[in-house]
């Protein structure tokens, strides 16, 4: 888990003290962002040793979090959340003039009840109700 941007990713065969320390620092959010991103990328490779250790650490984090007295946020938070995501969706759905290219892997593709069929709304006019 050395902090080298282009270093080849390693799959570990055993949990060493150094690995354990790095993952604990990662779990507690104590690493600088570049170091944290490096570890996140390593975890994405599927290294079982590191993912298992992280699983163990997240259970400790969840345990610690469970000792925090709960404080409720403002009651209108859900309303604000839904308004925010709808507004973001609408921003994304308003294409600029001219040709609009949609890549198959990007955007918020929605699944349907039919296997293998999904859709992406790329244009929506709230006045006319016209959608593409």
């Amino acid at each position, binding site marked *: 888990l050395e902090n080298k941007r282009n270093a080849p990713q390693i799959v570990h065969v055993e949990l060493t003290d150094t690995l354990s320390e790095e993952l*604990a620092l990662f779990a507690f959010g104590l690493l600088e962002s570049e170091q944290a991103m490096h570890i996140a990328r390593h975890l994405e490779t599927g290294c079982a040793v590191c993912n298992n250790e992280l699983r*163990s650490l997240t*259970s400790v984090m969840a*345990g610690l*979090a469970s000792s925090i007295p*709960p*404080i409720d946020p403002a009651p209108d938070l859900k309303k604000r*959340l839904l308004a925010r995501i709808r507004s973001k969706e609408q921003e994304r759905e308003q294409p600029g003039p001219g040709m609009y290219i949609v890549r198959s892997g990007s955007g*918020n593709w929605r699944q349907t009840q039919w296997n293998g069929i999904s859709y992406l709304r790329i244009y929506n006019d709230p006045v006319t109700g016209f959608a593409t």
Partner: protein
Amino acid sequence: VLHACLTRLNAGSEEALAQIDDHTNSLVYSIALGLLSDRADAEEVTLEILSQIWRGASSFRAERGTVIGWLVMVTRSRTIDRLRARRHRSSEAEVDGLQDKPAETPTPEEPTIAGEQQRRVRAALAVLPIGQRQLIGLAWYGGYSHSELAEKMGLPLGTVKTRLRMAPARLRQLLGPVGEQAQCTSNRACRTDRHLI
């Protein structure tokens, strides 16, 4: 329930998002508030986290733990980013004063909520050697990098790393299944629903 909601989110279900909000917003908000000591900032982080979940629920990996464990990590990471950005903007002394005294929530060493889970966490923390306990407290609420933490505690970096490796390992032994079973008992919606994960 939460796992099922995340799956439904991928299909764009607003109802699933509302349900996740019902069950987790107090947990996320309480963690953020403990670090930021500012209600408006903590609410903004809560909105960001839940919007992020809406956009990319698929970033959850079941092999890395429970939904709650993942949420705690994501929340801390996002909040610490915000805290560090704020530190860059404000004077170090001013922020230090703020962080040494979390204004509205106690540290995990000082839980005030009754309940078996909270008592067990408190008892487990009490068993840790004082150095490890202090480190866990500062690591949890400080939002410092490891080198800043070493400087703040007047310890070599190696000692900080060693303690941070040993403390969670000991806590894991002491807590047993508590962490694995940790529920988001924070939210009203969860206090009556014990089958979240």
